[in-house]
């Protein structure tokens, strides 16, 4: 329960932060303005998305599932939730298929970077431990 609450809170806060940044960039790039109602809508969509993604993080606590499978399941769930949030938040240009592709591709790149980071970290840890075991064997 504690883990679920922590994950939910972290997801909520990160999502709101990213939403704030994305809305700011969008307004600056398009030289546009946003109404209070629109801002509130984006806030609600981001909050719900963040909570949903936060709950998805609990997949990483299921030990018997391999790490690669955990990431794939998390990726698929996040893609679905981002798609739903994007629909209600009007994030996509429905006349331009490329907008869907670019969001999906961006998400894929983020996961690829994260996967590479965690894999290399694990590899480094393994190497360190094996070196220590080898030294002990030689002693």
């Amino acid at each position: 329960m504690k883990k679920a609450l922590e994950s939910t809170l972290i997801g909520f806060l990160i999502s709101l932060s990213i939403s704030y940044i994305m809305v700011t960039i969008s307004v600056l790039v398009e030289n546009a303005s946003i109404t209070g109602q629109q801002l509130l809508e984006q806030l609600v969509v981001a909050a719900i998305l963040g909570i949903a993604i936060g709950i998805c993080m609990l997949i990483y606590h299921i030990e018997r599932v391999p790490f690669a499978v955990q990431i794939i399941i998390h990726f698929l769930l996040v893609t679905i939730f981002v798609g739903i949030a994007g629909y209600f938040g009007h994030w996509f240009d429905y006349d331009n298929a490329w907008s869907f592709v670019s969001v999906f591709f961006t998400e894929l790149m983020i996961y690829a970077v994260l996967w590479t980071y965690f894999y290399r970290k694990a590899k480094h840890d393994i190497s360190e431990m094996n070196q220590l075991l080898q030294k002990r064997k030689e002693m």
Partner: protein
Amino acid sequence: MKQLQMPMTNVIDGYVDQEIRMLKVSEIYTVYVEDGKVYFQTDEEEYQSKKKLYEIEELFTQKFSRVNKSTLVNVDHIRSFQLDILGTTALILHNGTTVHVSRKYLKDLKKKLGIGRE
């Protein structure tokens, strides 16, 4: 101070076929749970324990490290570690047994081996 307060013992009772045997800690490779029962894995035999896994973990905290939800490993019997393409860590013991290591317990295992910070 914490170490001095720990019970100093290097033997534990194991059971097989209604017989009891006092096992030295050094003989035990792993302690694992299967079908709700706790077993000691040694070279000769697998002995059942009357204690719970967490009790054994507390009793032999210096020599054994939890590596996943249902297994303790004697750190002196670890031969090497492996990482597969799926990112799963496993350790190989001197008797050839392979044990999956959960990421949750990797930090503590590193500490027991003398790597990493507190």
